[in-house]
């Protein structure tokens, strides 16, 4: 049996004394695979991402990365919904301080790669929202993580920036092949980037459908993306697999 890069087995996760959000939930992700979690707002996509990322460890079950419990595995590259930068550090220090083992030259290189080379010494308050998001992305990628967790990375960004970021993600997925979980409510994001789409619904959260895309990411044209996005939407509504 092929070894999975990410094994998720959440037997129970609940908030306070309420009914469980997850109950006997299982999901496996192959090495280098890009899986999009798609579902309505509030269904539990971000919660699952937080469990995988070790931000929330208050659950019953096991999550392992490359066979190692997630908390003991090397840190993932985590892109939060907001940029979540440390306002008291400039761009370079936001990478170096948080990642610890990343030196200034590597940080500068990654900042240049997301298009912020001219603002390496600017503080977050001196950046626009889009620039801050780019810096958050640079922080996630700087340590060359084997696991990439993206929580709505395109939400509230303008279409030009979204297009540029999509291009960057595509090139990273092809070149470095990190195992990636992409949380999105937009079927089009999933259609552009994912190898597989997992549809979330219900409470406790269940997998209502899965779609695997056979057209390689790099070869997907506008028509393919529209067709795939439509398929994701239809599956979400009909629960088809």
């Amino acid at each position: 049996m092929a070894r999975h890069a990410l094994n998720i087995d959440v037997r129970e996760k609940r908030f306070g004394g309420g009914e469980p959000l997850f109950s006997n939930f299982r999901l496996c992700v192959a090495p280098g695979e890009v899986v999009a979690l798609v579902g309505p707002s509030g269904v539990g996509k971000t919660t699952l991402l937080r469990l995988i990322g070790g931000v929330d460890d208050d659950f019953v079950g096991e999550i392992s990365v490359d066979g190692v419990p997630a908390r003991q595995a090397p840190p993932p590259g985590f892109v939060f919904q907001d940029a979540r930068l440390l306002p008291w550090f400039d761009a370079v220090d936001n990478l170096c301080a948080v990642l610890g083992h990343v030196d200034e030259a590597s940080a500068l290189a990654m900042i240049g790669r997301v298009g912020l080379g001219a603002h390496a010494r600017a503080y977050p308050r001196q950046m626009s929202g889009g620039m801050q998001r780019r810096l958050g992305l640079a922080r996630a990628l700087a340590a060359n993580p084997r696991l990439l967790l993206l929580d709505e990375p395109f939400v509230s960004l303008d279409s030009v920036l979204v297009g540029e970021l999509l291009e960057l993600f595509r090139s990273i997925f092809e070149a470095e092949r990190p195992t990636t979980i992409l949380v999105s409510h937009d079927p089009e994001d999933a259609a552009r980037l994912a190898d597989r789409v997992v549809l979330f619904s219900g409470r406790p959260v269940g997998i209502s459908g899965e779609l695997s895309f056979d057209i390689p990411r790099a070869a997907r044209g506008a028509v393919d993306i529209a067709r795939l996005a439509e398929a994701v939407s239809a599956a979400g509504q009909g629960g088809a697999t």
Partner: protein
Amino acid sequence: MAGLPQIDVTVTEPASAGRRGMARQSGPGGQRPLWLELLSLPLLVLIWHVLAVVVASRFLPTPLDVGREIVDLTAHGPLLSDFGKTLARAGIGFVVAMAIGSLLGLVLGRVRLVDRLFGPWIVVGLNLPAIVVAIACYIWLHLTEFALVLAVVINKVPLVTTTIREGVRSFAPEYDELADAFRVPFGQRLRIIYLPQLLPFALAAARTGISLIWKIVLVFEVLGSDGGVGFRVGVYFQFFDMKGVLAYTVVFIVVVMTVEYLVLRPLEHRFLRWRDTH
């Protein structure tokens, strides 16, 4: 592999602003004229001089007379040794009170149970009259240096504790999540996440602490000590010697302003400059 196109938008960053060189920006009201600030104290001295000339009383000497008195007391009197004693007491009291108050503030801010149990003690401490603490310390521990410094510390600790506790309570949980996600070890977390959030509160506690400690050290010295600024001012008071009182007061203000402008403000600028960037 190609990266994203480089962003080159104009941000309102001072032209000279490098990593270490962020300049303080003027507020929404525009640049404050520096000359007004420089003129402020000479104006005060001028008003004092005019008043002294008009009143022409030995109870209100002119700034010039007070200046001469300062020179005389420095050269032949006890001014330097008195200030040495007062500064040492205030310095020790400040350092000890900041250390204890910060530690207590951290614990009370983090552990709700401890805060509930000991929170009222802090309220009592905040409202305890300083003079009562000094008298109690002098009675229990006699007129010693230790009693004086202890009284200063007891007066100051509740204020530092309260300020630091508020700082700890205001920690943003999002940064903890960030640290969790990137597996930032505790020591590094302390340095890059907790301390920067605590620093504005620590500086505020230091600033209020210094101004409070100056005053209470002087009061306690009047009450019972064998030297120091407060002791000497008490002696001058007994002889209605306003020239001596004002000489000590002026030097005292110079010392306080020196600490403010040469220590506190540069520190604040160094550590909090990111808040002034736009």
